[in-house]
């Protein structure tokens, strides 16, 4: 739903001063504010031009784009936020719906403890300030998949505020350098999901399935610190990894567990922010980047041609690769926010404020949750760099591919080979084969044990590096043979027998006398003619 216009304009005015920079999308001077200390000191990368139009004209100003994201993550829990019906991806229509979810009269919301814990964990992982008291509100609008006519959310006082998300953008000559960037998090709030509508245009009706209605959502609102599709995509990917590491959300965009809406505007650096549009229906990270870049360019083109940008909601059409206006949305929405009368304030405690003799089931201790936070992706990457001596870029690749880290660690467990060797084989050879055939790690024909065995043979100099590559190719054919079997079948073992080796050399020299003469003359490359 489009946010009320008031909110954006207020934000825009506040951040005009932070947007004064003439740099490129990937080479920005530190914005004013607390993040500057972290980014300062990093050398800037090769200059990349700001967005320019196709036909550069004289005296043309450069454009800067401003992107703000609103991310909804479905909380991974057994039951819904305010009712005891089940949370499951696919089930017969309306079978996971309680009386409260269907908003039958006389039903009341009862808050799910797990959802609150998930919100606190996520807030802590994103360096937020956790509000010890937060409030629930009703946001009213009419739509068939919102049976109550309002959504319970946290507009006045959300559970977590003022955090930050650090992500790494690939830059440099070969996209191999990783530059850390930070986007501020405005707030994290708990809210209800709506049901699903299936539009039947043929019979001019909409079919409503309320299975999803009432499922707990974490809305993460990012400040408009992003400036292009790639930054947005990388930031969302990092958030996905964090949520998955915490276990608070499976964050699978394809299954609708992670939804992103983007607010995009363009302006000339130094001038006030432009009118923004909201882009919805972004259901993969790739489309997110594409849609944002398209919309930025569309706005630039429109303004360059003397047109104006309407404050509207647009939908991304991935087949056409463009955004289109959504007719259904009205310009201004008045959500008539009011406090949720059926829910008292949500009070959280820490070690110092925990009331003595309180029922542990009824209190949530922020400090306790902080202690039990699992390892975050950034820490995992640091650990990989320290433990295995790999480059930071490698650790990013390992974490970015689903299942790759586990694969790598399993290989490390079973092999004697050096970590650098394993890293190289996993990231170059193994990943290369996967990408070529568009396979996921889980679909790999080569198991960690097989690769470990292969690397052991390489390590013990049983086979040469070239032979190892051959064996790997054979393994990929999924014929069920172990590396040992392949090596003996194809006789790829490095010869150790000195006598046999000498004989081989002699016979070769006899067969190629010209080559021998050239070699003696001092042309070592003549040996290549021998096969």
């Amino acid at each position, binding site marked *: 739903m489009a946010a*009320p216009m008031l909110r954006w304009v207020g934000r825009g005015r506040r951040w005009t001063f932070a947007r004064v920079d003439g740099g490129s999308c990937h080479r920005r001077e530190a914005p004013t504010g607390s993040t500057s200390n972290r980014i300062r000191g990093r050398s800037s990368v090769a200059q990349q031009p700001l967005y320019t139009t196709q036909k550069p004209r004289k005296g043309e100003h450069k454009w800067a784009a401003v992107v703000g994201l609103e991310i909804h993550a479905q909380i991974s829990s057994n039951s819904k936020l305010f009712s005891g019906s089940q949370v499951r991806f696919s089930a017969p229509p309306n079978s996971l719906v309680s*009386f409260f979810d269907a908003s039958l009269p006389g039903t009341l919301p009862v*808050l799910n403890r797990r959802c609150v814990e998930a919100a606190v964990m996520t807030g802590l992982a994103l360096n937020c300030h956790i509000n010890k008291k937060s409030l629930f509100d009703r946001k009213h609008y009419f739509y*068939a998949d919102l049976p109550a006519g309002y959504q319970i959310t946290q507009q006045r006082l959300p559970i977590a505020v003022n955090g930050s998300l650090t992500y790494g953008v690939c830059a440099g000559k070969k996209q191999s350098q990783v530059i850390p960037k930070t986007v501020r998090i405005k707030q994290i709030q708990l809210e209800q999901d709506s049901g699903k509508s299936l539009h039947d245009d043929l019979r001019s009706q909409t079919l409503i399935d309320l299975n999803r209605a009432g499922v707990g959502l974490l809305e993460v609102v990012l400040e408009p610190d992003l400036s292009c599709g790639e930054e947005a995509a990388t930031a969302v990917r990092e958030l996905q990894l964090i949520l998955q590491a915490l276990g608070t959300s499976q964050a699978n965009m394809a299954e609708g567990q992670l939804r992103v809406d983007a607010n995009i505007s363009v302006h000339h650096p130094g001038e006030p922010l432009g009118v923004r549009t909201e882009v919805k229906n972004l259901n993969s990270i790739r489309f997110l980047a594409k849609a944002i870049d398209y919309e930025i360019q569309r706005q630039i083109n429109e303004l360059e041609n003397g047109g104006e940008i309407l404050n509207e909601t647009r939908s991304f059409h991935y087949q056409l690769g463009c955004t289109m206006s959504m007719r259904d949305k009205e310009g201004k929405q008045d959500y008539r926010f009011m406090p949720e009368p059926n829910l*008292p304030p949500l009070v959280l405690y820490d070690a110092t404020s925990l009331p003595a003799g309180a029922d542990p089931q009824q209190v949530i201790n922020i400090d306790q949750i902080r202690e039990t936070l699992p390892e975050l992706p950034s820490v995992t990457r640091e650990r990989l760099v320290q433990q295995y001596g790999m480059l930071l870029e490698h650790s990013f690749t390992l974490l970015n591919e689903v299942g790759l880290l586990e694969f790598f660690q399993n290989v490390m467990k079973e092999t004697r080979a050096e970590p650098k060797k394993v890293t190289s084989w996993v990231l170059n050879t193994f990943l290369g084969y996967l990408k070529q055939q568009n396979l996921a790690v889980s679909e790999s024909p080569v198991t960690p044990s097989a690769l470990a065995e292969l690397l052991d043979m390489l390590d013990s100099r049983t086979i040469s590096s070239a032979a190892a590559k051959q064996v790997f190719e054979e393994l990929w054919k999924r014929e069920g043979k172990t590396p040992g079997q392949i090596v003996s079948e194809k006789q790829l073992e490095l010869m150790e027998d000195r006598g046999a080796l000498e004989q081989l050399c002699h016979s070769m020299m006899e067969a190629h006398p010209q080559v021998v003469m050239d070699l003696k003359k001092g042309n070592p490359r003549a040996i290549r003619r021998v096969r």
Partner: protein
Amino acid sequence: MWSRLVWLGLRAPLGGRQGFTSKADPQGSGRITAQVIEHLERLALVDFGSCEAVARLEKAIAFADRLRAVDTDGVEPMESVLEDRCLYLRSDNVVEGNCADELLQNSHRVVEEYFVAPPGNISLAKLDEQEPFPHS
């Protein structure tokens, strides 16, 4: 009367909270304009179909206005009447659901276990087509 209005104007941003969009009545005279009626009808899908209904609304607002007689200077606003209560936290167990048949009985039209609704939102044009509201 005027001092009360000025005080009302000051009260709105009090507390430093993100404000709700409020509809403070600037005239204080109790009359509701046709514009406000139209806006309310659109938002709440109610039908102020007659003069009587609007008059009743104006009386209701005047009745509630008597709250302003209370001096609340320096008093922290309440969030809700439940603000002193403890918010009960439920364990994350599945205890409800699986009553599709019962729920679907409430619906006028059903297609294969889905509720049936008209497509999208009813467009505004249709609302305007209704008899123009006679506001005196």
